[in-house]
């Protein structure tokens, strides 16, 4: 962009626009923060402006309730992501490098599955889980979530592996590597970027999962975050302070995740957009 033709007006407009947008976007967080320190009297009197004294106790109360949910979600997200990636990496190696009997049929089926509205299959899925005693279990939920994540991951990974120069694999073959060793020493190092991006996507997806846990988990202590908060806003109808604090706390783990992995994610999205 030529700096010469940049008028001061243009510069100001651009930055002003962006900051205005940012202000609008961050408004909810400001609200959350402010309200989280209020007790109900303060809330009803002056809802939006900060009020003193700050009720730190709200946060403790929130943590007591929401902490469990967060732990559940961590378990769910980590387990689901792991299972998804292990299964997907192994399978996409096979699909990307070889033509397996019925392989094309399987792929066509995957595309069809992607198009199905999930809700129609919920009841049969529920029954299946019941029969396999996977109900009311975070592990069961992880497994089913991993199944759902396969389609996208397989699609992306298979294309990636197909596009990789054959030489890497052939070299390993000549060196004497078994298939599993080829996955470990060729696929994972070469596809590290896209695998990380997929992992992050799966993690966030599992973190946000709502419908499935809603219908399968019964015990309140096992609820993952989204469902927990949903139930909470019914129960907490009058206690706004702790509620907001709970929302805020819920956002923290993902912030930490992103702080560490943002670079991968942005790069992964760009690569994905290219291949797209």
């Amino acid at each position, binding site marked *: *962009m*030529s*700096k010469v033709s*940049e008028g001061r007006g243009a510069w100001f407009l*651009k930055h002003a*626009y*962006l900051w205005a*947008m940012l202000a*609008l*976007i961050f408004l*909810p*967080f400001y609200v*959350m923060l402010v309200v989280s320190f209020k007790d109900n009297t303060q809330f009803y009197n002056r809802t*939006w402006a900060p009020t003193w004294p700050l009720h730190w106790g709200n946060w403790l109360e929130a943590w007591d309730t929401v902490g469990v949910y967060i732990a559940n979600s961590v378990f769910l997200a980590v387990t689901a992501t792991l299972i998804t990636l*292990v299964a997907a990496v*192994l*399978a996409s190696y*096979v699909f990307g*490098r*070889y*033509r397996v009997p019925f392989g094309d049929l*399987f792929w066509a089926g995957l595309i*069809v*599955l992607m*198009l*199905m*509205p*999930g*809700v*129609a*299959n919920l*009841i*049969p899925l529920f*029954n*299946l889980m019941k029969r396999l005693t996977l109900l009311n279990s975070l592990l069961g939920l992880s*497994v*089913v979530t*991993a*199944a*759902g994540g*396969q*389609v996208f991951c397989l699609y992306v990974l298979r294309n990636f592996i197909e596009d990789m120069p054959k030489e890497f694999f052939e070299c390993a073959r000549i060196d004497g590597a078994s*298939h599993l060793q080829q*996955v470990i020493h060729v696929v994972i190092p070469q596809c590290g970027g896209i695998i990380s991006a997929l992992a992050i996507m799966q993690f966030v997806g599992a*973190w*946000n999962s*709502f*419908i499935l846990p809603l219908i399968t988990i019964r015990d309140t202590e096992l609820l993952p975050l989204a469902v927990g908060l*949903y139930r909470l806003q019914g129960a907490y109808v009058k206690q706004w302070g702790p509620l907001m604090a709970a*929302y805020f706390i*819920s*956002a923290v783990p*993902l*912030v930490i*995740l*992103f702080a560490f992995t*943002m670079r991968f994610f*942005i790069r992964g999205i760009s690569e994905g*957009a*290219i291949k797209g």
Partner: protein
Amino acid sequence: MARERVRFSQIKRYWPLYAMVVPTLVLVGLFMYWPAVSGVWHSFYRWDGDEVATYTGLQNYGRAFTDPKFGYAFVVVGILFVASLFKMIPSIVTAVVIHRITSDKARYLYRLLFVVPMVIPWMVVLLIWKFFYNPIVGLLNSVLNTTHLMDVLVWANAWLVKAGIVDSAAFVANKSPAWLGDPDLVLPALIFWGFPWIGIIGVLIYLSGLEKIPRSVYECAELDGVGWFRKFLYIELPLIATQVRINLVLMIIGVLKGYGLILVLLGDDGGPAGRGLVPGLYMYYNAFIRREAGYACAMGILLFFLILALTVINNKLVRVEK
């Protein structure tokens, strides 16, 4: 790149490959194919989701075609889709503005700042908006009142009623509009949700596309004396338009399938007078609340065929593009 063919007969030699596919096959076969097949099967039955199942043939399908609520659900989806098209504009504008920022450091900073909201769990965002829409303590009404926009709305409402155009009493003096509780306000509330409608993933994707435009194109335009708006029109917009066109059908499909948002904001019946009903939610409602799972499955199959048709059309369009 030619892939080596694996023959079933040589299973002894290729067994590791077969073994490696097993986890995926089990997961997908068991938890995705099976429920789908079962869904198709049960669409021909009257089923309560558990044991009771009586064969009813195509009755569920017939019912779906004549069910006014089902049809209305598609109208809602149509409205929401059109709205979502407009809601793409802020993302595009933001991406372009960020792209035009001269300082690299500033650009990186903005990207960072805009990405942060992506980190908030979706449920939290939804619940915050539910809070905003709260008639008594919600932010929206507070803002409207403080800026006296509320008075404008009340005036407009009265004028429209007098002119016979509109029939509702949504905005009346001294009454707090119930955005999620008033049947007339439900759809506007759903459309307005998410203001300022800057979807981070969209921005990032547009940005990465914009960044691929070679510098030389801009420099050429500079030499030709093209102004900033024209630059947008001829350089950036076509690129984004292409991306949008490719994603258009995916968007439609997404809107068709989605219902979690409505569920949280309005409840499982689609809100007051069912004004916010979408197909997905209606299926959920039938399956889990009214225990008419067979009917829900039938609707699901119909929806699937619609999505399939749209995808086929999309593929034809995309091929034409290429």
